[in-house]
C-alpha cells in the first residue's frame, strides 16, 4: 500500500490549484442554455463555453491524452494526473470541462475504432463543445433488450437510408449529431445485424419530439427517421459489427455516471445544511436519528471512495483482480447517490418537497432535482436489474436464464 503520488505529482497538483485559483468564479457568456456543463460561477472572468474548453485543452486539463491533430492536448495518458485534475477542479469554485455523450462516449469510441477521417472530422469540434452528440440506441420495443432494435438502415448506392424510431434520446433537441444503432443486416442473427452510424441531426427526414421527464425538464426525446439519407462512410466499424462498437461505449458510460468523489461532496454539503437548519430549535445534526442516517451514508461513500482508489491502482498496476469490482460501479454508484439525495429530503421534511422557484427553497432545490434525476440514471444505461444479471452471470458465473422461443 502506497498512497503517495510522488514529488512530480505534488508539483502538478500545485499547478492545477493555481490554475483553478486564476479562473475562480468563471462564468459563461453563453449562459446556462447548454445542458452539458455546469452553469459556471460568478465574480470571476467571463468567456464562452467553447473558449473555456479550448483554454482547458491548451493547459492539458482536458482531453489530455487525445492527440494534438484531433484537437487534444497530445500528452501521455497519465491516470494519476487525470485524477488530480478531476479532484482539484471538484474542490475548487472553477467550472470543469463539459461532459455529455459526445465527449464521454463517442470520442473514446472514435479514438479506438474510428477511421482517420472520422477522427479528424468529429473529435475536435466535439471537444470544443461546438458539436453536441446524442445517443440513439433505445427504441420503444428495445430497452433493456437493446439488441432487438428494429430501426432499419439500407445501403442504397453510396448512402444509408434510415427508417424507424428512437426514444429516450437525451439532449437530441440540442444535438448536431447522433451516434445511432441501426439494423442493417435483417437476415443475420440479432446481435450480428446491427451497425453503428453517425447521423447529422439536420438531415431531412428527422423529427424530434421532446419528452418531459419527472423533473419537469425535457431531458430526452423521441426521434423519428423517415427516409433519412447519410453517406455510406458514416459508419464506425464494419457492417454488422455495431454491437461490439456500442459495447465499448457502454463501458465508458457506466464508469462515469456516479463518481464517489462527487457523492462525497454532496455528503459534505448535506452535513453543512444539517448544521444550519433547525428543527424544534435544534440543528438537524443534533437529532440523533438524522445524524446516524448521515453517518451510515458517509460510511458507504467512504467505502466507494476507497474502492475507486483500488480500481485506480488496478489501472496503474495491471494484474489485480477487479473484475467484479468494476461491474458493480454503475449499480452501487447510482443507487447510493439517489439514497443520499433522498436523505437530504427526509431531514428537511416538508421543506424538502419545495421545488422550482418556491420560497424557502434550500440549495436551489438541487436535492429534490438530483433525487429524481438519479432515478433516471438508475434506469438509463442499463437498469439496476440488468446490472445484477451481469454481476451474477459474468461476475459470479451463475447460469443464464433459459432461452425463450423466438426472443
Amino acid at each position, binding site marked *: *500500500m*502506497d*498512497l*503517495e*503520488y*510522488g514529488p512530480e505529482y505534488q508539483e502538478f497538483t500545485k499547478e492545477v490549484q493555481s490554475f483553478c485559483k486564476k479562473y475562480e468564479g468563471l462564468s459563461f457568456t453563453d449562459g446556462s442554455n447548454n445542458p452539458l456543463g455546469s452553469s459556471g460561477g460568478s465574480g470571476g472572468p467571463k468567456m464562452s463555453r467553447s473558449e473555456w474548453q479550448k483554454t482547458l485543452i491548451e493547459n492539458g486539463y482536458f482531453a489530455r491524452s487525445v492527440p494534438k491533430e484531433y484537437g487534444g492536448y497530445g500528452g501521455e495518458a497519465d491516470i*494519476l494526473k487525470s485524477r488530480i485534475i478531476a479532484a482539484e477542479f471538484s474542490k475548487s469554485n472553477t467550472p470543469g470541462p463539459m461532459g455529455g455523450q459526445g465527449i464521454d462516449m463517442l470520442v473514446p469510441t472514435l479514438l479506438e475504432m474510428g477511421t482517420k477521417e472520422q477522427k479528424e472530422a468529429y473529435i475536435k469540434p466535439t471537444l470544443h463543445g461546438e458539436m453536441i452528440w446524442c445517443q440513439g440506441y433505445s427504441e420503444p420495443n428495445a430497452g433493456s433488450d437493446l439488441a432487438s432494435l428494429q430501426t432499419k438502415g439500407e445501403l442504397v448506392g453510396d448512402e444509408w437510408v434510415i427508417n424507424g424510431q428512437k426514444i429516450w434520446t437525451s439532449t437530441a433537441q440540442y444535438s448536431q449529431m447522433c451516434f445511432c444503432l441501426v439494423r442493417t443486416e435483417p437476415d443475420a442473427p440479432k446481435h450480428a445485424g446491427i451497425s453503428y452510424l453517425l447521423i447529422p441531426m439536420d438531415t431531412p427526414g428527422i423529427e424530434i419530439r421532446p419528452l418531459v421527464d419527472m423533473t419537469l425538464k425535457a431531458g430526452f426525446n423521441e426521434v423519428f427517421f423517415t427516409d433519412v439519407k447519410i453517406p455510406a462512410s458514416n459508419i464506425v466499424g464494419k457492417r454488422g459489427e455495431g454491437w461490439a462498437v456500442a459495447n465499448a461505449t457502454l463501458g465508458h458510460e457506466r464508469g462515469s455516471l456516479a463518481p464517489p468523489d462527487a457523492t462525497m461532496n454532496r455528503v459534505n454539503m448535506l*452535513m453543512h445544511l444539517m448544521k444550519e437548519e433547525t428543527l424544534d430549535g435544534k440543528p438537524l445534526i443534533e437529532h*440523533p436519528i438524522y*445524524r*446516524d442516517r*448521515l*453517518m*451510515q451514508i*458517509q*460510511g*458507504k461513500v*467512504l*467505502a*466507494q471512495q*476507497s*474502492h475507486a*482508489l*483500488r480500481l*485506480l*491502482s*488496478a489501472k*496503474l*498496476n495491471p494484474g*489485480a483482480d477487479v473484475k*467484479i*469490482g468494476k461491474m*458493480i460501479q454503475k*449499480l*452501487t454508484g447510482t443507487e447510493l447517490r439517489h439514497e443520499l439525495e433522498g436523505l437530504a429530503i427526509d431531514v428537511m421534511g416538508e421543506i424538502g418537497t419545495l421545488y422550482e422557484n418556491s420560497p424557502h427553497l434550500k440549495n436551489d432545490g438541487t436535492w429534490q432535482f438530483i433525487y429524481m434525476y438519479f432515478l433516471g440514471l438508475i434506469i438509463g444505461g442499463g437498469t439496476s*436489474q440488468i*446490472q*445484477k*444479471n451481469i*454481476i*451474477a*452471470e459474468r*461476475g*459470479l*458465473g*451463475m*447460469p*443464464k*436464464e*433459459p432461452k425463450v422461443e423466438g426472443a
Partner: protein
Amino acid sequence: MYFGLSEEQSFFQDNVRKYLEEYATIDNIKHIANGDEKNLSAEIHQGLLNLGINALLIPEEFGGLGLDLLFAAVVSEALGGGVGPIPFIAPYVMAPTAIKHAGSKTQQENYLSKIATNEYRFGVGFTEFIGKRNDAGITFSDHSLNGRAMFVLDANDATHLLLADEKGQIFVVDAKSSNIEIVKLTTVDKTRQYSEVICKNLEAELLENSSDSINPINQAIDAGRIMLAADSLGASQTMIDKAVDYAKERKQFGRAIGSFQAVKHMCAEMAADLEPCYALVWHAAHCHDHSPAEARLMACHAKAHVSEMAKGIAKKATEVHGGMGFTDLLGLHYWFKRIGLNRQILGSPELVREEAYKTQV
C-alpha cells in the same frame, strides 16, 4: 501509487488460509464448538503461532516482525474466512497496540518481548470504555482494581489481561491471580472465547501513558475494530462463495436454482455490497499507521459499514441454501454467528457511527 496488498501480505494470507482449510475443517470446528475436543483448538493455535501470528505487530527491537496493521488485517480476514477457532484480535493485535502506545519503555520491554516469544498471552477487556451496560465497570484505587468487565476477549487461556476503567486508563493484571474470577460467557459464536472478569482488590499495573490520554486506548480499540471488520469481510466472502457454489449445483423445478433471477439477484447484491468493503478495510488499516488525521474516522466507518453489509450477506447466503442453510449439519451458521458477534463486539454500528461523527466536530 499502489492501493492493495503486497506480495508478502498475500502470501502470508494464503498460508493462513491453507492452514485453516487443512486443520480447521468443518468437522473440527464442530468438535471445538461442542467442546468435545479440548486440545484441538490449542493445536490449531500452535500451528498458526508457528507461522508467527503473535509477532506481527511487535516492533523488531522487542523481537517481533514490526509489520503494520494492514498485515494483521489480512490475517484477520483469513481467520474470518475459515472461522478460525483461535484467539487473535485481543492477544496479538489489541494488546500489542495498547502496550506500544500506553506503556513506558520498561513496560514495552517487559511485555512486548514476551508476547513475541509467546510466554505471555493477553486477554483484553475494554468494553466498558466503549459502552457500559448495567452495573458493569472497573474502578482503580490503591494500585488495585475492583468491579466487573464484560465481554473480555480471549481471557480463558491468557496469562495476563488488559482491563480499562471508564476514563480509558489501561491496566495489566495477572490472569492467574486469586483475586480475579473469570466466568466463561456462552455466546452464539462458539469459535471464539468471551468472558466476564470480576476483580476484587486485584493488584494492577497502570500502563503509564494511558493515565492522562485516551489516545492509547483509542488506538487499541481502532485496531480491534479494523480486525473485526476484516474478520467479517472474510466470513462474508466465504458465505457468498458457498451460496454461489450451492446455487450452481442445487436443482429445483428442473433447473439450477442459480438460474432463477430471485436467487441470482441475491447473489449479485451480496457481491456488490461486499466488494467495496475490501478497499475500506485495507484503507482503514493503512490510515491507522500512516494517516493519523483520518485514522479514527476510517476505523469507525470500517467497523460499522462492514458490520451492516455482513449482516445482510449472512442472511441472504443462508436463504440461498434453503432448508440446508438452517441446519447444524452444513455448519453455515458458524459464519452467520461469527458475523453476529463481530457486529456487537467493541461497539455496535450505532455506537461506532456516533464516534465517527464525534471525530468530525
